[in-house]
């Protein structure tokens, strides 16, 4: 390892190793967050009060107590209660559960932003509630959701850095390793910042691209 670190390409390889872990956390976390956001967002709009209360409590809990605290809780307290989880699984789960609370409000807001006539027309056409959601409301609502989802994904990417504190070797962790082994501070941290920035630019470009594709053929006035 020390020979690998003795040159610049060694630095870069270590950082890229970390970036790979960060990417896995981000993608897997986003998948959980996306599914969770739709489930919770639809629960918030449910006819059944119990579902609405559950979703509201979940959202306030995960948004109100810091993700930092949630991750430490999952890592240090859950194993004592008999739920030993791998650090990677803990990280993905906490990131996903946390960001789904933020995403749920986006889903709810976007569904409410679809003009009321759309609901009424779907009812008049005798569509079932499922068909109404699947074919009329959601295709329009998703376009409203995308920009904020993009921001949420970037927030998730940034939050992945916390996992370096529970011994996962992500990008931030590798930057610390390089600092500790070489004493050089500027290169690892500026390198890590640049890699994070590139990933977040890719996310925001990707989301914008998706937005233009999905709004094709929809009569939506852009916000």
């Amino acid at each position, binding site marked *: 390892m020390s020979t690998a670190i003795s040159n610049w390409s060694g630095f870069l390889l270590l950082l890229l190793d970390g970036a790979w872990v960060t990417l896995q956390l981000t993608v897997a976390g986003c998948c959980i967050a996306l599914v969770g956001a739709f489930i919770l967002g639809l629960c918030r709009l449910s006819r059944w009060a119990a579902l609405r209360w559950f979703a509201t409590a979940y959202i*306030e*809990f995960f*948004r*109100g*107590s*810091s*993700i*930092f*605290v*949630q991750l*430490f*809780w999952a890592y*240090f*307290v859950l194993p*004592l*209660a008999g739920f030993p989880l791998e650090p990677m699984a803990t990280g993905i789960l906490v990131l996903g559960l946390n960001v789904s609370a933020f995403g749920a409000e986006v889903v709810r807001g976007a569904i409410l932003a679809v003009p009321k006539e759309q609901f009424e027309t779907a009812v008049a056409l005798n569509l079932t509630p499922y068909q109404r959601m699947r074919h009329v409301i959601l295709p329009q609502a998703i376009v409203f959701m995308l920009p904020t989802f993009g921001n949420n994904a*970037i927030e998730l*990417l*940034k*939050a*992945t*850095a*916390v996992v*370096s*504190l529970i011994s996962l070797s992500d990008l*931030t962790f590798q*930057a*610390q390793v390089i*600092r500790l082994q070489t004493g050089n*501070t*500027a290169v690892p*941290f*500026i390198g*890590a*910042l640049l890699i*994070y*920035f590139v990933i*977040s*630019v890719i996310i*925001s470009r990707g989301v914008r691209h998706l937005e233009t594709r999905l709004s094709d053929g929809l009569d939506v006035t852009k916000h």
Partner: protein
Amino acid sequence: MVWDWAFVWSILPELATGVVVTIQATVVGTILAAIVGLLIAMAQRSRNRLISRPVQFFASFVRGTPLLVQLYFLFFVLPDIGILLSPLAAGVIGIGLHYSTYMSEVYRAGIDNISKGQWEAARACNLSERQTWIHVIVPQAIPPMIPALGNYVVMMLKETPYLSAITVYELMNAARGVANSYYRYFEPITLVGLFFLIITVPAVIILRRLEKQHSRFG
């Protein structure tokens, strides 16, 4: 794993010292973020591209990268170039700068909402650029921004635990300290989470109410 009240009482004084630092960091960070955020928003509006472009890039760079790494940067890299900061100072500057880039977006939206007539009237009254900002634009733009700015203050409070990574003895660090010395994680970490919930839930309810009021009158 049973909740032990006696243990909770015994660690509360230690956690309270952490709470003080957490609140200090949030308050000073907020002031910094509010001021720097306004400067960023004004610089982004500048007609001089040599000012607006770099500031724009700086803001999106800071928004697109993790606070934790930014804190490490301030804490480890700056001393190498001769700038020595205490952990708390580095932490407050880091969190303040991070959120200034978010607050600048709130300011930008607020300033864009001021109607053109106000600018024209200020010019007609022969006010200087400075006078226009201080006496006409800022006083009108700020009240509708308060809910959004408040939300970011709440977010900042929740992110103060990041400061523990650069050895600031705030609430999370105090909790980890007692957890490690007694080898009991359940109570200390749960208490930190509860502390944040007790502050953020009412704050969010109040901010939501304020927001509704503004949208009704705005």
